[in-house]
């Protein structure tokens, strides 16, 4: 299974050096998905994924602004990464075995645990996805979503009429206008769509989650060092939250006596050097974007995405977000 990775290794092996010598990181993001990546009225990219890109840049260069965002569609996201047009992809992409193995990519660490669900209008009085027999369902093509839906419908003997629209905005507005009875995508997407509706309470996200959708940033296969930086940046964000280090208090926390905090913040040990980075890398990251919880709060909570009791909660609170030890 390693064989295919050999040839790209030639060019991918030095992604780290290439990025460092270029001085900017090129990060693939969604063309527009509320909460995750989307330009605001002034044309500045904002969102959860976007902040991850900034965090990577802060880790690599100590400056969160040394990043360029390349909007990608569902079709060209993988080619954009394969061809070297982008260095890293933080674009709500599900980590699957086939993608990990056959596309010449490496997924790093799951930064968001998602799962596919359904949303309906409250007025339909539907309480469970099983009641969707005969419904019209809005779905995006060319993604795992579409296949999950057909698998699930077959398993549950449900007939449905699909409305398949490529661009998300269109799909959402089709649902909102009542073109479909139900809208299916990852729960996070549902939540963000729901919160964007004039009356969010008119929409219900059904309890069934029909798939696992771990979203993870991906890099080209072959440069383990670069992948490490990406992976550990994520872990730094988690660890910061575990340790209570925030954007606001990261300077004061430098004096925090806890050894793990000392190591994370580069006061103690050479963890940054080991990654090939500055020892203050984690400080830079947190200064730029805050910790994981802050990012979540900033971008996803306003969309109505629950964190408590979801897999995205810290492991200490019953979730799955867990950082390996910084030592």
């Amino acid at each position, binding site marked *: 299974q390693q064989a295919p990775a050999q*040839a*790209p290794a*030639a*060019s991918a092996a030095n992604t780290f050096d290439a990025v460092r010598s270029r001085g*900017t990181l090129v990060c693939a993001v969604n*063309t*527009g*998905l*509320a909460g995750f990546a*989307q*330009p*605001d*009225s*002034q*044309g*500045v*990219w904002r969102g959860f994924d976007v902040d991850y890109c900034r965090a990577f840049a802060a880790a690599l260069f100590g400056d969160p602004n040394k990043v*360029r*965002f*390349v*909007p*990608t*569609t569902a*079709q*060209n996201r993988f*080619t*954009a990464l*394969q*061809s*070297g*047009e982008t260095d890293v992809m933080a674009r709500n992409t599900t980590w699957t075995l086939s993608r990990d193995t056959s596309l010449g990519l490496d997924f790093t660490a799951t930064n968001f645990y998602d799962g596919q669900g359904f949303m309906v209008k409250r007025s339909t009085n539907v309480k469970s996805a099983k009641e969707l027999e005969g419904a019209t369902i809005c779905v995006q093509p060319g993604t795992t979503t579409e296949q999950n839906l057909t698998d699930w419908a077959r398993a549950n003997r449900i007939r449905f009429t699909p409305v398949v629209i*490529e*661009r*998300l*905005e269109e799909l*959402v*507005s089709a649902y*909102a206008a009542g073109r479909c009875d139900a809208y299916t995508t990852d729960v996070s997407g549902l939540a*963000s769509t729901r*919160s*964007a*509706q*004039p009356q969010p309470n008119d929409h219900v996200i059904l309890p069934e989650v029909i798939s696992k959708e771990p979203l993870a940033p991906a890099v080209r296969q072959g440069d383990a060092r670069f992948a490490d930086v990406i992976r550990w940046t994520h872990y730094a964000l988690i660890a910061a939250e575990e340790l209570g280090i925030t954007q606001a208090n990261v300077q004061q926390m430098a004096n925090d006596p806890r050894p793990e905090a000392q190591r994370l913040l580069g006061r103690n040990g050479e963890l940054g050097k080991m990654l090939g980075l500055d020892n203050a890398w984690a400080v830079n990251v947190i200064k730029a974007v805050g910790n994981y919880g802050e990012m979540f709060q900033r971008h996803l909570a306003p*969309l109505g995405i629950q964190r408590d009791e979801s897999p995205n909660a810290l492991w200490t609170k019953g979730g799955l977000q867990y950082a390996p030890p910084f030592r």
Partner: protein
Amino acid sequence: MSDITLDTAVAKAPEAAPRTAPLSQIGLAGWLRANLFSSWINTAVTLVVLYFVVRWAIGFIEWGVINAVWSVPDNQSQACRDIKGVGACWAVIAEKHRFILFGTYPYEEHWRPALVCLLFVGLYVVSAMRRFWRKELALIWIATLTVIGVLMWGGVFGLSYVPQERWGGLPITLILATFGLAFAFPLAILVALGRRSKLPAIKALCVLYVELIRGVPLISLLFMASVMFPLFLPEGMNIDKLLRAQIAIILFAGAYLAEVVRGGLQALPKGQYEAADALGLSYWQKTGFIILPQALRLVIPPLVNTFIGFFKDTSLVLIIGIFDLLTAGKTAIIEPAWQGFGVEVYLTVGAIYFVFCFAMSKYSQGLEAELNRHRVR
């Protein structure tokens, strides 16, 4: 003879004075009668059309002006939501117009793409004027396009560097269309010449290219540029997305323009070719000095029409995720606060496209009439 002329001039024969036509023939009444109510069927048509036009116009004015919301305090789109369906929410334009026009270009640097748009318009205006139809025009184009590149990218003369992914909105549309034309044009000339060549292999190659491209939709070429192009290049070499789309548009435009140019070449009398041959001019001298200057002049009106087509077609890059005017417009309404105001944004974007295309099409019609008058004389 001359005295007769004199006679008539002095002594006019008695004649019935020209009467004015009956009132029903002239003036407003005459005009109305002739143009709107000349027969009962005509009258019926007039009334029906009038009814619909008036009803639609009143409805539109009510929605678009009287009941419209023009602005809201920062992102509080609730006022807009309340009147949805009854009035337009122009507040979305007030809030998002700079994003629609310039996309993700750095906000403080928006004067640069704005200047670029003005330069493009200036370029079009200058190219439209017949007194600039000289060789120097090519220099003007090269100079302007260079300045545009400098402005957009920056990185020199104290302008900050702006990478290509941050460009967006109207400049992208103008760049795709104009650079598309500028590069497709020489290609088109070569292909058109090739298609008329006596050498069978070259001719076949050109025919194949033109027919292949014209037989498939532009979006399949754009898909190819976006998905397949990276496969064509050696590893490690990559071309950014805008450039790939630009190449697809150039290849596409090249085929259509080649047919336009070929039309001009065919319209040129054979005698011009023969006279040039008889003077001993070589093939390239003949082509450059005699054939092309005349043939291209003949095809300027269809050229402008083709250009309008490309201008509109650049909107298809939406499908591969490039932030042109239309994509920027659509992206503007992703933000939760502004979702659902597509019609307002589409109308605005449509108005921008319309202004450009309408101006060009009027110009081409005028030019065509003028050139035809020339040819008749």
